[in-house]
């Protein structure tokens, strides 16, 4: 069944530290008043312009195999390809903050208000991620009762475009999930409009299936350490 989820704005307002961190500001750094004012302005704009909504649909391993394969352009092997066959259950998801916030970011840049544009962009990215995180937690709650020992289960989301899962897989993901229902469309180049949208799969299974050595072909040129942080967090959970 496809679920459409409306978010409570209070749940997705980005944390101020995260917004600053997204722009390279070191946590705890002393900021000038004008930078604090920019941050508060971005938070206010976020609250007035973001229209967060999500869609989620459970998918079988068999169906996901085809969705994952996409247009046949994935790296081989990839972490996701090794993980999903061992899953217990999974769901496709997409979330968006809507078009208004992206339009506002563009307006700021066109008016040479770069700092305002960048601050709002950083906030919107954090907010979209937060919405995806909430979807993941909702799925966790939904499936918890299916497991005798849910503490042993790891629930993690993965997105096309990352870790060797080619972005062209968006086409089949969209075909199955139908995020058009919440206003997300796919460009010919497999990118989403509105820009501040996140899509992917939430995979639930024994925690150890999400642990991998980062020596896949896709890891070779990747400096992003978030997978390592995520695996460590899962171990500690």
């Amino acid at each position, binding site marked *: 069944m496809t679920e459409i989820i409306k978010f409570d704005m209070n749940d997705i307002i980005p944390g101020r530290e995260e917004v600053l961190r997204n722009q390279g500001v*070191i946590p705890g750094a002393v900021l000038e008043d004008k*930078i604090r004012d920019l941050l508060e302005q971005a938070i206010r704009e976020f609250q007035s312009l973001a229209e967060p909504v999500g869609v989620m649909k459970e998918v079988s391993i068999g169906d996901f195999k085809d969705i994952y394969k996409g247009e046949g352009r994935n790296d081989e092997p990839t972490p996701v390809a090794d993980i999903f066959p061992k899953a217990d259950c999974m769901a496709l998801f997409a979330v968006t903050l809507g078009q208004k916030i992206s339009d506002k970011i563009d307006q700021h840049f066109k008016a040479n208000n770069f700092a305002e544009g*960048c601050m709002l962009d950083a906030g919107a990215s954090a907010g979209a991620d937060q919405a995806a995180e909430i979807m993941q937690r909702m799925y966790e709650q939904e499936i918890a009762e299916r497991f005798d020992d849910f503490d042993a289960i790891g629930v993690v989301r993965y997105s096309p475009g990352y870790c060797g899962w*080619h*972005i062209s897989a968006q086409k089949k993901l969209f075909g199955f999930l139908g995020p058009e229902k919440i206003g997300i469309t796919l460009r010919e*180049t497999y990118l989403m409009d509105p820009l501040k949208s996140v899509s992917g799969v939430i995979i639930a299974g024994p925690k150890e299936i999400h642990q991998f050595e980062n020596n896949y072909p896709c890891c070779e*040129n990747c*400096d992003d350490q978030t997978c390592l942080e995520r695996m460590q967090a899962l171990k500690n959970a």
Partner: protein
Amino acid sequence: MDILKQISESLQKGDHEKVAMLTSQAIEEKIPVKKILDEGLIAGMNVVGEEFKHHRIFLPSVLLAARAMYAGMDLIKPLMIRDNIPTIGKVVIGTIKGDLHDIGKNLVGIMLKGAGFEVIDLGNDVTPDRFVQAAKDEKADAVGMSALLTTTMTGMKDVIELMKSEGIYGKIKVIIGGAPVNREFAEQIGADSYAYDGMKAVEILKEYVKDK
């Protein structure tokens, strides 16, 4: 205080209104446009760049300074065109095909303009054809490519291969950036340089046009 120094200091503070007012005043006082640019605006941005490089200020402050730079540039650009004053170089930039993430590329463009470059921004989702055609048409000194996705960064190689087949590889510098990209990847695909942020891109390209 010398008006050019005031322009520089106001720019460093991100006071775009004051920079515009002082630049107008400098123009009225018949200070050569090139001098206003070099000793006022660019001098101020150079200080901002150094402060950023040494982590004494952060991106939002750089962007406020950039807006102030643009406020001054808007006033002197018509005069630069009138007097045939060249920019320090021309750079074609864009986010690679299949990638919509252009905030990083925008920042690079802002900083390059702030440093006195002419920037031809092709936007996002740019095909190899468009990169190469723009580089040829604009007689660019450099092409700058950005990617945020690990699955789109490989498209940078396609641009370089097309540059080779069009005979402009080696004549036009190729600089790449973006979260998943690094120096090793740049070497692998035959890019001349990798820049981890906008200020580094400015530093590299300034050296390049100086040596040219």
